[in-house]
């Protein structure tokens, strides 16, 4: 499964992309995900949007649930999810590189 055929992995602020990015550093439950995403992306995802995205990622096998701690169930990224995230960030990187090059920011790829 690639970023192209996975809805929600095309724009930097898409909740599925933010969730996969957060889980790339280790398993987290809902509240920890919200806090981490707010820290690294400056985006506060509401509970409804978060669990909408979690259920879709879960259905597609991009994340998986771990044993629940009380009612707070942690999730971790799967191998398929890591591949989809790698594809997505590579795609985003291409666009970012072109933008940086054209703006002369110094870190873009010449071309």
């Amino acid at each position: 499964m690639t970023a192209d055929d996975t809805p929600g992995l095309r724009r930097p602020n898409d909740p599925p992309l933010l969730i996969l990015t957060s889980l790339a550093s280790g398993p987290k439950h809902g509240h920890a995900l919200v806090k981490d995403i707010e820290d690294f992306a400056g985006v506060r995802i509401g509970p409804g949007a978060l669990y909408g995205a979690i259920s879709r990622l879960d259905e597609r096998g991009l994340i998986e649930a771990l044993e629940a701690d009380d009612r707070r169930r942690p999730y971790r990224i799967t191998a398929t999810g890591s591949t989809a995230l790698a594809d997505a960030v590579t795609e985003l990187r291409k666009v970012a590189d072109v933008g940086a090059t054209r703006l002369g920011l110094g870190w873009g790829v010449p071309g």
Partner: protein
Amino acid sequence: MGGAGVRSGRRACTDLVRWYPPEWRVRYGDELVALIEDELEGARPSVAFRVSVASAGLHERVRALRRAGRQGTPEVRIRSGALIVLGAWVALVFGGAAFAKAAEHFSHAQPAAAQSLSRSAYLAVALLAVAGAALVVLGASVALPATVRFLAGGGWPSVRRRLLVPLAWSAVTAVATIGLARWAHHLDLRQRNGADLAYCAAFLGWALFLAVLLGLWAAAAVAVGRRIDLTPRLIRVEGVLAVLLSAVMGMVTVAVGLWWVAMAHGAPWFLAGTRPGTRPSPVTVQLVLIEGLLAVATAVAGRGSWRAVTGLRRA
């Protein structure tokens, strides 16, 4: 916060999750409640927060319906299609009631000879409304024995809340209707149609009550309709009735549009509420909203009807 406060906060969180479909709640409900509690930290949810969770829950319900439609047996497709048409019919009833209010006394706006199209269109709306109501009553009658069996056979606890809330709301709406009717009795036509601002505000409040009431009964009907045990033959009958009902809804929408065109041509002042003989724009916010609601309800019914038709073909 004391024990009672914690319990009421937890209850508020649990209530919010009720917007989600039952099967989704079984899998993610507890986690979502825990997350909401963590997010709120004991505070009461704001209106924006409630709307955000409710809209996400409704979105999940739409997804669940779509999934059921794609994956289900012909009977599941017919049943879910018929319930979609029923929900759309309720929205159309509200739009139809608003149209009846907007068209009140329209026959006084023109000479009788110039009214043939508007009168015919209005009559068609009225007749189609009766036909639609008859189809809904017929559908309910078909499902009644199974509903009684379901309630008597232990199903009552699973739909008690869904039925008691609209019942209570019906009582409140009935009292409000009597109060509003008594008030209207003391006002003249001009006051009832905008000159008395307090009455207008009360009327809008009553309309809102009515809309909520219709929505609650529709939700109750869908909740019961999903649970009752119908034979394949009865499910096919419900499917055919739903297809007929959506056709009636389409005709209502067209007839209201024709009435609008006829009035725009012959008496635009009536639509705009200006002096007779003037030529204001016949495109009023009220009629745009009414026709828009009817069109959306018809489109949703068409979708439900299509689902029922595909189920009927496979059955």
